[in-house]
């Protein structure tokens, strides 16, 4: 049996009613779903083929034929943004998965065991935090070479301590509660208590942090691709498109404007969604935010 003490008086219908009354959550959800839908759509349909180079159409300004213009190889920017969304979402999602998959168990163990295990883990966290994330990502891609997979690893590694910290802090707040004492009295072990009682109670915390890290992952992926360490051509990626645009700012500014706006809108949507979830599930945060 699982106890959900954080939401004792709340029914699913109540939470849903609150969710749809929350502006930040609604806008964030709509934007996020839209971006995901565009990425999925790109698997079956894009206005133009992004792998075909049409030099005759190069660097055309936005028009009815090409809404967002074309790049220096005559590729349709809108189509490239649609396909690039796949890459951004995939990299950020897997990186969050890595961070959660490794970080949460580590944080939970640190909270459950305490003492020297906890101390050692926190010092390791300090160590990872001492490396500015971008710098380490550059180092990792310098070792293993550039590419989407290595970008995922680089971003994923820096999600681990974040989730470890959140899980630890959340778990430490739950451990002294009475229902944990009851579970211990009932003869449950540390692992069982962690899985059955601690994790369900910190799930919302992790969800909120997950959306934040997702948004940061998209920014980080764009940064890495921009300096040439992320997804490699011909795979379109938003950061790479900005890099190609940089030297053509005078002649083809649309090459920079639209991919950048795609990044901003996606990150904005995820941040709003995260803020919204935090608001709905934790009434205190409404005041604090």
């Amino acid at each position: 049996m699982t106890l959900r003490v954080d939401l004792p008086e709340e029914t699913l219908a109540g939470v849903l009613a609150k969710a749809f009354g929350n502006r930040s959550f609604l806008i964030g959800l709509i934007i996020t779903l839209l971006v995901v839908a565009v990425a999925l759509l790109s698997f079956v349909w894009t206005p133009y083929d992004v792998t075909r180079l049409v030099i005759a159409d190069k660097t055309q300004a936005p028009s009815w034929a090409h809404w967002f213009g074309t790049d220096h190889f005559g590729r349709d920017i809108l189509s490239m943004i649609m396909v690039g969304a796949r890459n951004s979402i995939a990299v950020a999602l897997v990186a969050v998965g890595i961070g959660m998959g490794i970080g949460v168990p580590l944080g939970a163990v640190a909270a459950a065991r305490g003492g020297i295990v906890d101390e050692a883990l926190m010092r390791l966290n300090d160590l990872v935090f001492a490396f500015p994330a971008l710098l380490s990502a550059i180092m990792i891609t310098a070792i293993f070479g550039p590419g989407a997979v290595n970008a995922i690893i680089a971003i994923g590694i820096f999600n681990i301590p974040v989730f470890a910290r959140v899980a630890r802090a959340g778990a430490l707040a739950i451990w002294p509660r009475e229902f944990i004492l009851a579970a211990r009295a009932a003869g449950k072990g540390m692992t069982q208590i962690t899985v059955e009682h601690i994790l369900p109670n910190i799930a919302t915390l992790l969800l909120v942090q997950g959306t934040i890290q997702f948004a940061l992952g998209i920014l980080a992926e764009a940064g890495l691709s921009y300096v040439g360490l992320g997804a490699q051509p011909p795979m379109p990626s938003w950061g790479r498109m900005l890099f190609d645009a940089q030297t053509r700012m005078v002649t083809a500014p649309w090459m920079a404007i639209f991919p950048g706006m795609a990044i901003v809108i996606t990150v904005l949507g995820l941040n709003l969604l995260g803020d919204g979830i935090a608001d709905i599930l934790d009434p205190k945060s409404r005041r604090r935010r």
Partner: protein
Amino acid sequence: MTAYLLKRIIIAALTLVLASIVVFAVMEILPGDPARLMLGLNASADQVEVLRNQMGLNAPLVLRYLHWAGGLLSLDFGRSYTYSVPVIDLVRERIVVSLPLALIALALSTIIAIPIGVFSASRQGRAGDTLVMGAAQLGVAVPNFWFALMLIYLFAVWLRLVPAGGFPGWSAGIWTALKSLLLPAVALALPQAAILGRVARSALIEVLNEDYIRTARAKGLPYRAVLWRHALRNAMIPVLTILGLQFAFLLAGTIIIENVFYLPGLGRLIFQAITQRDLIVVEGIVMLLVAAVILINLLVDFSYAIVDPRLRAIPGKVRSGFPSGIAPKQILRAVQRFRETRNRSRGRQ
């Protein structure tokens, strides 16, 4: 307080040592023989071997680490493989671009963020607050290198007010040099200001709900005075935390921004060094930045004690080491709050 500071210092030193081991190990894994790199492709195996001996590359791993780490302590980062000059000279040349850039960006973001936070907090829930926080929400989502490109388009291509890139050097006159750092600094500062402004607002709102604020108002102090003098000072802890973290972030952020503006700073140097496999330069810069981050975090820890006198009474281990009967709830809450903000903001890095 001494115990608290001592613990922070020991942890900082330990982190630094561990970081140096990690950096050294990473560079050992990387492919490429520096001796071969220096001599070129035509060198014979014997020549390479002689140089390897000269450079100490054949010594045992532990000895090489100790030699390298020992050098770091006296700011001796070794010699660049490609330029054959001491790494510290290269760094010295470049840091006069990166450090001023980061400092200007930090100052800019503080100057923008604090008034925004105060404005928003004092109008909580009203139209002005919603508008400003909406803009901040947008600012957080903007990648600084894209923002930089837009700034270049607007101010350098369209309006021709500032150069689009490059750095004339400080010898060209302070104003000329500053002008070419202006756009990069704004590009770095605005997204950071958005984060800092949000932190300042939430910290202020929390403080404004405290009893002593009501007391100050009740004794007849004007709202303005209470806001700026009493509330702001008490809201400084989370703000300082973020500020410290941002400086580290800005130092790293200059890596990308310098590439956008073709500024000859540390960021450009590290990219060149990576492509040229000049590993000892990479090692040196990474260690320098890591040391800067650790030092700044240490200073932030110290500054808590200065800003908030309540914290001075706290021994190192707050969570477990406090006899529960003695600890005033307020102190524990304050510590918890600043640890929370610190963790949350670290997540944001």
